[in-house]
């Protein structure tokens, strides 16, 4: 059965895209059939996996507007997972969907058609609360929350949990929080340790371990169009993402 996981945090710059690319790659290494979906008009996941969004004939924009079948847009990547890519036009999709009845369910309908082809579908959400993020949370079975261990990210978790409650109440009562993934974690700072402890205690959320340590390696990878698993395979970041992917697999 397919597990659909939304990687979401309304706060920007917390490594959502890096997490999707890396966990997607790690799950592929573990023999899983993986689809990653770029739901950010900035198309960072698309770029990170080696595609230039300017060169794409079709993208998630066309899929969500019902212009083209998702299977025609899915592309394979060197990293391993299949990709549903994005372009800047997704910004317009958001505006178009906003007036539509049943706007929360568009992505769910698209993914239902693809579900049998994959073991995991990972949704890379945009760093804002909009129709596309609500679509992702409505289509997902679980949500993984990457969190940089500092105050504003902590606050972002609270805001996202409020949204998760809304989604459960209104359109996806079965949505589960898989946990918080600490990213850019610097264990030398008190703030990082206290943030993590407070989030764990305050919300009773599972914290995925090991945390992804602060390092330049994952940030370097997108320029090569691969994840850190390929560009710095033996690095601490790559190993941490592999362990987290294994935990997610075992969590089923």
């Amino acid at each position: 059965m397919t597990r659909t996981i939304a990687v979401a945090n309304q706060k920007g710059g917390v490594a959502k895209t890096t997490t999707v690319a890396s966990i997607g790659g790690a799950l592929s290494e573990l023999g899983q059939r993986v689809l990653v979906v770029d739901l950010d008009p900035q198309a960072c996941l698309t770029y990170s996996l080696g595609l230039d969004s300017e060169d794409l004939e079709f993208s998630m924009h066309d899929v969500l507007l019902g212009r083209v079948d998702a299977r025609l847009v899915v592309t394979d990547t060197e990293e391993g997972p299949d990709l549903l890519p994005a372009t800047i036009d997704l910004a317009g999709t958001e505006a178009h969907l906003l007036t539509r009845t049943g706007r929360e369910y568009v992505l769910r309908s698209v993914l239902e058609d693809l579900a049998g082809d994959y073991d995991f579908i990972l949704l890379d959400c945009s760093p804002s609360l909009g129709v596309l993020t609500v679509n992702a949370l409505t289509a997902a079975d679980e949500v993984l929350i990457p969190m940089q261990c500092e105050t504003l990210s902590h606050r972002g978790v609270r805001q996202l949990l409020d949204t998760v409650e809304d989604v459960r109440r209104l359109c996806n009562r079965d949505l589960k929080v898989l946990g918080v993934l600490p990213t850019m974690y610097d264990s030398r700072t008190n703030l990082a340790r206290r943030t993590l402890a407070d989030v764990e205690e305050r919300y009773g959320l599972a914290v995925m371990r090991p945390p992804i340590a602060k390092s330049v390696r994952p940030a370097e990878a997108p320029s090569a169009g691969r994840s850190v698993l390929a560009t710095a395979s033996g690095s601490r970041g790559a190993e941490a993402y592999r362990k987290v992917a294994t935990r997610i697999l075992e969590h089923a």
Partner: protein
Amino acid sequence: MSPVAPRPQRPKPGTFDRIPPADAERKAKADPQGKQALFSAAEQPPSLGSASVDCTHCHRRTVVSLPQLLKLSATGVHAPLPKKGYKAWLKCPACGERSWMKVKLGR
């Protein structure tokens, strides 16, 4: 006596005192033109001249006009069973599947 009221003490940097506890009541009002606008399921309750239909298949609520409801009912069945409140076997305007629906007329 100082004419200036003392400032409230600021929380210390690096603490989380300003983040409300998990069980705090949410202050956000259900403004249909605010965050709730993201959810079509949260749209305004049916007003006079409209009705809401709740689908047991897709769990969505759709607000339809009375002529739309009549059109849906023309090819449907109304019965007191099987589930309390879900008395109409109709084609859901949201998911397109036939299932038991709860129909509520606006007032």
